[in-house]
């Protein structure tokens, strides 16, 4: 009986996840949030079904009913998040909240399977983080001076990273965290957000060569501190985010070329100078010849990905725990093994859906500071997803970063939740901008009605600007 349920649920879970992934792209068929209501409701139901099916399997496999209580707590928090967010901030985007909850629930499922203790810890952190994240859209919306704090961001970022470098503890060869009162922080995670704010505030008004140059120096300091701390993954994220933000702010592809050239040069130098870079590249090129040592992690990860097949081994049926640090750096491999390649691919699609929505919001924003923030955070998010999944599947060399919202790690999940909330705040700003626009339009119409000789000139002018607005919307 149990076997029937666990076997059949494998296919059911994959199917539900595929439907969810489909809906997360179906959203883009409609331009207006109001017309997407049905999709969002279906998403919520599918999310509920996936989460429930997974925990049902966990209960059957372990024969331990106490997992059910844990499930109920999770479900309450996730459901409350999806509903409350929408109620408190009706102008925000629901796709982002839904995807966020979906990814969190996958994280809960796979962490519960890997380590109950860690899952509970993660759950508490997520619950607190969501509470923190709830207020963020409000502040983003209200605090208009955020774009003037350029030097504050620079100092805060470099300061936080610098302190870790000096005082931090080594964890597995990298100096990336420090503890305050028993809680371990990984500042490079939070600095990602501050860094995006720094670049956006520095480049939103003028993008002359001097501006780009000074920001490049600051960005370089960030990257160098991270490289010295041996946190290569974060260093790479900062670098890529900076180059792409400069490209978008200046609209000049030459900066992209310069960034690519500089990046390649830096990579070659890093490869020559740092032995740990060489080890990673070697382990990527041929992990099989060093299966005992440097290639161990990546080969174990490949075993996991390769053993699941399309529909997975089923929860508790595989051995993802054989991968070192599976719950942080290799969570994707655990998902692929037990829930299947199909499920894992759908999960990637959900991540892409988030990213596309971020970019969509960015393109619709009129204020270039906010639009750079939305763009920068989107790139930070998707590039991190790329690094961790690509690294775990031997697509690119391993850099050791977490999969946002799914991996175990308090700093990572809190940072990502803040990022998502900031985007929601930007969504509110976008709505506000649009309202202002329609008001201007209505005023224009009014002017037409009150037609008089004195207004002729003004009408002509407004008419022109209206034309522009319309043509602009077509492009959007």
């Amino acid at each position, binding site marked *: 009986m149990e076997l029937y349920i666990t076997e059949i649920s494998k296919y059911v879970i994959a199917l539900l996840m595929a439907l969810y992934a489909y809906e997360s792209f179906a959203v883009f068929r409609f331009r207006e949030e109001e017309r997407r209501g049905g999709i969002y409701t279906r998403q919520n139901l599918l999310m509920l079904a996936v989460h429930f099916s997974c925990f049902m399997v966990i209960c059957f496999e372990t024969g331990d009913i106490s997992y059910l209580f844990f499930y109920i707590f999770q479900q309450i928090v996730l459901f409350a998040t999806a509903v409350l967010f929408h109620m408190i901030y009706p102008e925000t985007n629901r796709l982002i909240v839904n995807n966020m909850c979906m990814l969190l629930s996958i994280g809960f499922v796979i962490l519960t399977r890997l380590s109950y203790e860690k899952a509970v810890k993660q759950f508490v952190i997520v619950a607190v983080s969501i509470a923190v994240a709830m207020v963020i859209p409000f502040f983003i919306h209200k605090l208009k001076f955020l774009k003037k704090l350029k030097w504050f961001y620079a100092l805060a970022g470099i300061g936080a990273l610098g302190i870790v470098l000096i005082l931090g503890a080594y964890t597995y060869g990298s100096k990336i965290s420090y503890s305050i009162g028993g809680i371990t922080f990984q500042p490079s995670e939070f600095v990602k957000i501050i860094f995006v704010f720094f670049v956006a505030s520095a480049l939103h008004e003028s993008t002359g060569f001097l501006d780009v140059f000074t920001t490049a120096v600051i960005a370089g300091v960030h990257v160098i501190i991270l490289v010295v701390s041996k946190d290569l993954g974060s260093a790479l994220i900062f670098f890529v985010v900076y180059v792409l933000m400069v490209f978008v702010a200046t*609209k000049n592809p030459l900066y992209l070329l310069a960034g690519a050239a500089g990046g390649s040069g830096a990579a070659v130098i890093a490869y020559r100078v740092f032995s740990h870079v060489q080890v990673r590249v070697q382990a990527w090129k041929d992990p099989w010849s060093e299966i005992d040592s440097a290639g161990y992690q990546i080969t174990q990860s490949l*075993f996991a*990905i390769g053993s699941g097949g399309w529909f997975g081994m089923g929860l508790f049926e595989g051995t993802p725990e054989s991968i070192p640090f599976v719950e942080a750096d290799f969570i994707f491999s655990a998902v692929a093994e037990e829930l299947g390649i199909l499920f894992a691919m759908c999960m990637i699609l959900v991540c892409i859906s988030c990213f596309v929505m971020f970019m969509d919001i960015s*393109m619709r924003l009129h204020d*270039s500071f906010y639009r750079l923030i939305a*763009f920068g955070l989107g790139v930070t998010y998707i590039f991190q997803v790329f690094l961790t999944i690509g690294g775990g599947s031997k*697509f690119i060399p391993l850099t050791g970063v977490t999969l946002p919202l799914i991996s175990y790690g308090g700093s990572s999940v809190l940072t990502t939740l803040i990022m998502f909330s900031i985007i929601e705040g930007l969504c509110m700003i976008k709505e506000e901008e649009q309202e202002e626009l329609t008001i201007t339009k209505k005023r224009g119409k009014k002017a037409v009605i009150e037609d008089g000789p004195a207004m002729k000139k003004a009408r002509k002018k407004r008419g022109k600007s209206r034309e522009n607005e319309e043509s602009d919307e077509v492009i*959007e």
Partner: protein
Amino acid sequence: MKKRKKQKKKQMNMAILSVTYLFVAVFLGMMFYICHYSVTHQQELINNSYNGRQQMLIAKNVRGKIYGGGGEILAQTITDENGNEERSYPYGNLFAHTVGYSTHGRAGVEALGNYYLIHSNAPLSEKVSNDVEGIKYPGDDVYTTLDVNLQEVANHAMGIYRGAIIVSEPSTGKILAMVSKPDYDPNQIEELWDGLVKDTESGILLNRATQGLYPPGSTFKILTALEYMKENPDTYRNYQFQCGGSFTSGTDRINCYHGQSHGSVNFSSSFAKSCNASFANIGLQLDKAKFADTLEELLFNEELPLEIIHNNSHVEVNQDSTDGDMMQVSIGQGTTGMTPMHLNMITNAIANEGTLMKPYIVDRVENSTGTVIKQFSPSSYKRLISQQEAESLKELMRGVVEEGTARKLKGLSYTAAGKTGSAEYNSIKEDSHAWFTGFAPADNPQISVTIIIEGAGSGGDFAVPIARRIFDAYFETR
């Protein structure tokens, strides 16, 4: 002013859009890579000894059975009442190298089909009832292409000699029999293991059919003849040579087998009588670069399209080859090393109008109730030689049976074609390995055999009679 701002926004959106497309494209590439990798490397990953999942599957499923082509059980796992498992091989030594073993590493079909044998696709209802009874699930069974009767005939014909025999189907690539001697009893692999590993002299664990590298001797003349025909398509039929039992060029001298003088020979009688002197003469006329290319196309110094553990044949022909080297190469002596399996594949390509079918030994996989899980079908590897060249070589090989060194196959109910070899492996003594490779019936080849008997003597005297017994056994039942 406002217009400029709009313009700016438009440009910025283009930049954002291009970054979006870039990331989406990279992700699609990565997703394709992951799917592709996990599907194509699934077996390799599971079979890796560092992968703990293998042990998990072994603990969950009883290792499946291995069957012969006629449904004979070649290997099975027997569980006693205490739950102890033992792998049993009912035919003992007979399939030692072919079916292999599954403890102390794996060999043969046990290694090839390991992925299937340790997985269970038993129906859910059976798994459920096994769960209730507390017994393991039945693993999937592997059905081979092996013909037990031919294997017995080949094994018996080899007698006490060391060597190897491969019997296969040229039109499909199915391996019907594969014998390698000396052999061992896989039922006793546990007790024998330490002795087998220490014994480096006789190499009992070596599957000579696929791993043994032998001097090909006169069987290599197939390749020399092919190259000569390729380079002289219009004139090779006019070739004439006066054999006085040896051929000398500078200080290098090649003797015919036992110094026999063949008199006046043309191209086809040089081949049929396996005249070393004449072929040394031909070897000197070949274009070294072209010959090297041809040999490479025929899979020398290349990876064989074969999943069974094997060695790759090697030959040395290049611009630096001296006359002496070329003379040696042309008659299959010198530094050339070739596996019997490779020679069988070339023979099959000739029999199959030039196209090599990929050799295979696992025909299908079935679950415990007989539902086919996976069916392997014949697949062509590639065209090794042109149809015309295959036809000409077949004609030459017919000549060997009709009026040459394989006359012991003449005048039977079937028409055979082939090539013998007597490969000298010891520069002091005149000992030689007896080779034969060929197929039958010549006009519609159904079966091919490749035989090497170590140190027996001439191919015509020792290998050809074995081929005849195998052909007889095959055609008797058809």
